[in-house]
Every structure is written in C-alpha cells, then in structure tokens.
C-alpha cells in the first residue's frame, strides 16, 4: 500500500471520497472542523489526513451547497467553535453517495478480483 501515499493518487482519491467522508462524519451529530479532521485520521489509521488548507474549503463548499450547516456554539469555559451538522438535503446526498460508492467499490473489486483475494 505504499503507493497510496503518492501525492497524486492521494489527491484523486480524496477528491472523490472526501465529501462522502465528511457527510458521514456529521451524520450522527454536529462536529467541529478539528474533530472531523481527527476522526478521519484516526478512523483511517492515519492513512487519510486532511490539513487545514484542504479541509475548510471543503466544509465551506458543502455548506454553500446547503448539505451541511455550520453554527457557532459557545460552551461554558471554552472558546466558541463552529459545529457542522447534516441538513435534510445533505442526508439525501449522503444516501445517494453511499450507494454510488458501494456500486463503484463493488465494480472495482469485481474487475480486479480483489473480492476473491
């Protein structure tokens, strides 16, 4: 799996899947940007990592499309943070993207024989 770290593949893969990742992460509850980036990193065992320069523009794009919604939330003793949660529209998109992704992965697997591996 060394090639997955090559910057080009990294970018292409992320581009296709990043939206899906973020939408999935804010599905269950609202999360802030740092939390999202940490979750992606930890749940992928450090293989996927978003830095500030790519994560936030993506969040803003999703927000602009009205798939997620950001709110400033102030908690006692903490500085305020911006939490993002999935919108109704976002839920539909997430469901559709999940389907597409599953079909895509299944197709790749069938062709490459990875299913049987």
């Amino acid at each position, binding site marked *: 799996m060394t090639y997955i770290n090559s910057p080009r593949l990294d970018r292409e893969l992320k581009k296709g899947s990043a939206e899906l990742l973020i939408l999935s992460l804010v599905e269950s509850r609202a999360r802030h940007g*740092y939390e999202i980036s940490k979750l992606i990193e930890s749940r992928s065992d450090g293989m996927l990592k978003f830095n500030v320069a790519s994560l936030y523009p993506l969040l803003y794009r999703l927000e602009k499309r009205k798939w997620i919604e950001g709110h400033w939330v102030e908690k006692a003793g903490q500085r305020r943070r911006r939490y993002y949660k999935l919108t109704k529209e976002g839920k539909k998109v997430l469901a559709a993207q999940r389907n597409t992704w599953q079909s895509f992965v299944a197709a790749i697997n069938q062709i490459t024989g990875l299913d049987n591996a």
Partner: protein
Amino acid sequence: MPDWKVEISKRLAGLNLSPTREAAIIEELSQHLEDCYEEWLASGKTPEEAHRLTLAELRGSKLLQRELRRVERQVSQEPIITGLHRRGNMIADVWQDLRYAGRIFLTKPAFTLVVILTLGLGIGANTTIFSVINSLLLKPLPFSDPDRLALVWQASINDPSSWNIISAPNYLDWQRQNQVFANMAIFDSAGKGYNLSGDGEPARVSGVRVSASFFDVLGVQPQLGRTFLPEDETPGKHQVVVLSDGLWRSRYGADATLIGRTIKVEGEAHTVIGVMPPAFEFQIFSSPRQLWVPVVYTEGDKDRGSNSFICIARLKPEVTIEQARAAMNTIGLALSEQYPKENNGVTATAILMGEFGYEEQQSTFFMLLAVAGFVLLIACINVANLLMARGVTRQREFAIRAALGASRSRTVRQLLTESLLLAMAGGISGILLAVWSSNLLLKTLPQSLKAIPFRSLNSITIDFKVLAFTWGITCLTGIIFGLAPALIFSKRDVNESLQEGSRGTSAGSGAKLRQSLVILEVALALIVLTGAGLLLESMMRLVKVEPGFEASNLLIMNLSLPQKNLYYSPPEHPQFAHDLEEQVGSIPGVVSVSAVSHLPMYGGMASRGFVIEGRPDPGLDNSPGARYSVVCPNYFQTMGIRLLSGREFTEQDSQNAPGVIVINEALAQRYWENEDPVGQRIKIGRFDTDAPWLTIVGVAQNVKQDGLDRQSRAEFFRPYNQAAWPVMTIVVRTTSSPSAFLTPIKQALARVEPDRPVSGITTMNEILYNSLGERRFPMMLLLAFSFVALTLAAVGIAGVVSFSVSQRTREIGIRMALGARKSDIIKLVLNRSMGAALIGIGLGIAGSYGLTKFLSGLLFEVKPMEPNILGIVAVILVGVAFLACYLPARRAAKVDPMITLRCE
C-alpha cells in the same frame, strides 16, 4: 501562544472577502491550528517544533488561498460592513454597495416608494419639458446639411437686426452679385389658399409660389417625379404643381400615376410633376404647405418697392455666416445708392435658418424648464430630509462601520450609492411619466407655440438627447439629495453613537440642516406659486377685457371668391353680398349674416396709407396709415360691434354709388379728436392719385384685432361692392349653438358660390379661446407645478416636524410632567417650526423677483412683483405650513408623560 491569525490573514489577502466573512474564517481556522499546536505540545514536542508542525497544516502559502477562492468565488451572502484595511476593488465595492442599498430599500418599501414617486414626479416634469424643447427647438431642420442654410433679409441700415421680407428685383440683383451663396431661392412670404376642383369635392389647400431653385437650395428630393426646373418659371410653361405627401394621399389616394396628369388649381389645369416625401413639411408662421407652384413674376412682383418674398440660400462650403452677412451688407448698401427711392435706408443681411423665429417659444419653454427645475429641487429637499431622518435611526450602523475601520469616504460612498440608486429608480419612473405626459402636452400645446418656422411638431420622441438629459439630472439629483445626509452621518462620533444605545439621537447639525432645507423648500415653493399666481391673475384680467364684439353664437368660415385682380379692382361677383344675405340670411335660426376680409384675432391683416381732404399733404414718408378691412353690409350688427355715430354699409353702397368708408374709434380719435369725422372725406394712397374720395359714414367701436392683450389699432372699413377682396370670412349670428346650423349654411354657400370650398370652420368663441392659448398653456403648467410644489413642501414640512417631535418625545414628556399644558407644547413645536417656514417665505419673496423678470412677457396688466399676488401666495404658504406643523404638534401634545418617562 503563537498568533495564528496573522498567518491565516496573510494567506487570505487578495481574496477580497467581505470583512465579516474573513473574520469568521480566521477565527475558525486559528482555532483549529491552536488545537493542533496544543496536541503537538502534549505529545512532547518543543514549542518551536510544535509551531513548525502546526504551520505545515497550512501547506505553503498558496493552497488555502486557491481552494478558498474556488469556494468563495461568488460574492458573499453576509451583510457587508465595509472598510477594513484592504486594497479597494472598486467594481466589487460598487456592486456590494448597490446590493446592500437594494436590500436596505426593500426592507422599507413604503419609504422607498414615497422617495421614488417624489423623485419621479420631479424628474418626470423636467424630462417632459425638455423633451418638448428637444423636439421643437433642438432638432436639426429637416433639410439636407441644414447648418449651411441661411435666410437673407432686407434690413434697415440703422438697425441691421430689423429683418424684412424682400422684393423680387432686389433678390435677382443679390443673386447676380453675391459670391457667398452656392444657390438662392425665394418664396411668397404669405403663401395662400389654393382652390382644387375637378376631382371630387372642391377643396381649399395651403400653397405657396416658389422659385425654381427652391427645392435644390433646401436639398430635398421628391419621392415621385421631379421638382421645378428653371424653365418652369417661364410664363406659359408655369402650369405645373408639386404636391405634399399628405395632399397626395388624402385627395388622390396615393395614386402613383398622378404624375404627368393634370389637376385644376384655381380653376386652371396644372400638370402634377412631383410629390414630396412625408417628412417634408415646409411651413413658416402657419400650417404646413400642401402644394407648390413655380413663381412667375407679376407686374406687382416686378416693383422693387413691393416686398413680398422670403429669400433662402445655401452657403458655399468655405463661407461662414458672418462673411455672408458682411458680403450681403456691401451689396445691399450699393443697391441702396443705386435705387435711392425704393431702397432708401435699407441694406441686406443674412442669418442661419436654424436660428430664426423661435425666440418667444424659447423663452416660454426655458422659463417652464426653470420652474420644473425648482419642483425637482423641492423634491430633492424632501428626499434629503427623509434620508436624514432615516440616517438618524441608522446611526448605530454607521458607528459600527466606523468602529470596524470604515473610512469616512467609504461610508459617504455607500450612502451616495444608496442615493444614486434611489435617483435611478426615480429617473426611470420619471421617464415613464414623461413618455405619457409629453404626448399629453403636445395635444394641449397651442398652435402659436408649435408653429416654429420650418419645423413641425407632430410627435414628441424620447430620444438619445432626452435620455442623456434625464441621466444627467438623475445623477445630479442623487448627489444633491444624498450628499448632505452622507456628509453629516459619516462624521458621527463613534463612541457617542454607540453609547446612546439603540435609540437614535437628535443630531444637532442634522437638525439645523433639516431646518435650513425647510427654509429653502418653502422659498422655492413660494417662487413657483408666485409665478403661477401672476399668470393666473393676468389670465383673469385678460378674460375680463372687452373684445369689442359679442362672441357667442357666431359661426365663422372662409370662402374664397372669384377675383383675378386682387385688392384694387371691382368685385367679379358684385351680387355676392346680396346673395349671401338672401341664401344664408333666410335660414331659420340665422339672426344675421355678413362677411369680412380680416376677422379680428383670426390672423392676417392689411394696412393702407391715406390722406385727409382739406389737410396739408404730409408727404410720402409721413402719410397716416391704418388697418384696412373689406366688409359686407350688416357686418357691425352681425358681430355686435357698436356704432358710435353714423351708419354702417348697406346694399345701396354699390359699385356705382359714391365711395364710402367706416372708421373705428381709434382712427377717429387720432385725426378728428375734437370734431365729428362723419361726413369728412379721405383718399387711400396719395393726393395726386386718381383714387376716389371716400366719405366717412360711420364710426365703429374699437375691436381687439390682434388679441385681448393688444391695443386696438386705427382701422377703416370699405364696403365689399366698392373694394373687393379675394377671400372673405363669413360671419353668421345664430339664435343658438352655431354648430347646429353648419350644414344648411354650407349648402346655402354652395348656392352662392358653386365650386368654391369653405374652409377654416370655427366659432368666434373658439377663436377667442385659442387667442389666449399662448398664455393659457404656460399658466396651466405653472399651476400644475405649483400644486406639486405646494404638496411637496407641505409633506416636507410635516415630515421634518413629525420627525423632530418624535426625537423630542422625552423632552416633551418631561415638560408635561413638570406641568406644561397641551397648548404650551403645541406652541413650543409651532414656534420652532413656523419660524423656519416664515424665513423661507421671506427668502422666497426676494427670490421671486428673479423669476418673475423672466415672466414679464407673459404678464398682462400685472407687475412682476404685484403685492396682492405675493400677499395671497404668502398667506397660502403660511396656511399650508401652519397645517403641516400643527398636525404633528397636536400629536406631540397627546404624549402621555408617564408612558414616555417609563419607557426611558
């Protein structure tokens, strides 16, 4: 802890994000970096290492910017708070300002609508007047290369600007001798009616004799056939005619085969050789011409002293009008020496055709434009006041802008953008108003204001020039009403405004400015009102003027009579007066009937010199002259003109009877001041002619011949049977509304003069009404303007007073809590507000001195600074101002002190 904000801001520079958006992104991202940094520290890194690793999150300097630019490319949706220290992007700023202004206005639709309507009214009034001026005065003449066309006049050597029509021999000499004109032409100064017969019902159309070069000088081509050739001026070959498009369509059904055919003009066969295009409507001082015939010089035309033509010429390409004028003067002076008898004291001069003949209209319309400008200024003041009142409630917004670093110029720009946006909306509604009202205006425009030589006004178009004018006044308007509020509110002290809490304050300088605007508004309204008042008073005095005849139930129409030799020879239809009486006078309901050559107020006049029997010969230059009219029996009775002494003409004053004459009061007073002129004898012309002596048989009361506002001139009347005239105006007095008698009268006239069309059918009342058109039109417009001005001023005053009262609710509450009565509060408010109105009235009186000077030409027996008018106008304005102040004052007095103070 490192300051991440600086690092992030650096990377956001150049994105031109809105300040709030930028601030939000910086906050969110710096928090993320802070979390990273803390995590690195917690994992045992040194602060330096942690700092380096955290910064790596931003991955160079370009990535964040590039990614964000993609997302934030569309303009931010956030409210815009302007002016953080960033490099200005002018277009983006203007766009932002416009959008912001639009949103602000949409939140207050009523306010916005009032402002737009107010401005639309002001801008619309100006656009309307300008569109008329544009169509009437600013359009180039409808001829080819009109800037090279000139009019050449005879002029007095002592007064070169006294233009006069010319004689044919002088014209022919000018034509031969000049080196400055490429081509010259003449045409009959008066033009005349021509009878068309043969094809259907006889008709009388307006035509004119022109020299063969006429159409070439103007540079117009016929749409069909040809125009005149030099040989068409030769007697025998001259029976050719060119028709106007209108006549060709209406009488001949646009029949293209008409060219080469003959039609009957004045009973003689003429070959139609050409039809002019629709745009060619050559008119001077009267209605457009419908046909043109070539001039063939008659014996009368060949008299060098007989001026009856107008000369047009086309300048050679390199010659200026000044050079032409000098050259013509030289030629004129030489001719004056050569023909000392006929050309005594006269020379020649030239002017550009486009500069001729609209001075009167120009002054009327520019006066109206000035008044419309005042109305717009009042509208601007109202809007400025409204904006200032709103500005006070928006002070907190301005303070926040300033606190966030908005420069004063940036705030001024935002406010001016708002004003300009309002002005634009007002401008658009103004143009819509003008489209509608300019054509309404065209319909009410009196003929005298429309009749500008060589131009015709059939429609008023909103063209590029009008739009440019409107665009100009719209921008100016936006700046005028927007600048004062913008300057005032941009310089507010930030701390003061924020500390005041949400309640707006009564801004000291703003309040003063609002008062000054009220003063100006009242002054302007007074000026407009004074103008309208003076014109109205003039009109009221005019309609009271006795015309000298009884105008009601008088039917008027023209009839041309067979008369080859004009003016001096006996009538070719000597039975005319008798037949007229017999045929028309016998119609039931006709009280009496007669005819006259020059009906009062109907346009046209003739005058003759005369000598008085038994008095010394005054010599050629000093012989007395008077207006000259030819009338049928019963003329004075039919018109209701009183005879002061003697009798009027009867059928017995026939061709072979002794010559008789009736004179008017003015003539009697001038030459027979202390004696009875009846029985005295005069001779038309000079002592040494063989003209008959005419005995004065009657003296008639003075009649206003040229209009109610003009002096009655000395006049004498001759009986038709002794002095024929080719076109007579029939006057019929009826028992009731004259229009009911039109058909039987026309039928009767057809029996009197078969094949002779009647034309110009009207009533004397209508003539009287139209004679006042030139005054009525500006008066009506000024009345309309003054109504608008008064309404706007009242609304403006009430607005300012209401606003200042609402700002002082607390003060009023305290006063009332301390024992002030309602009447005290009303007095307090009235004192302050009426003071401004009274100062405005004073200033307005001074200002009307300026405007009314321009009105003096339109005034009748009224002085420009008539104290009565000024007094009435001032009282009206004081009354309106009082009402406008009193209503808000009474509301203020209803304030419950407890509620007010508790609210505090």
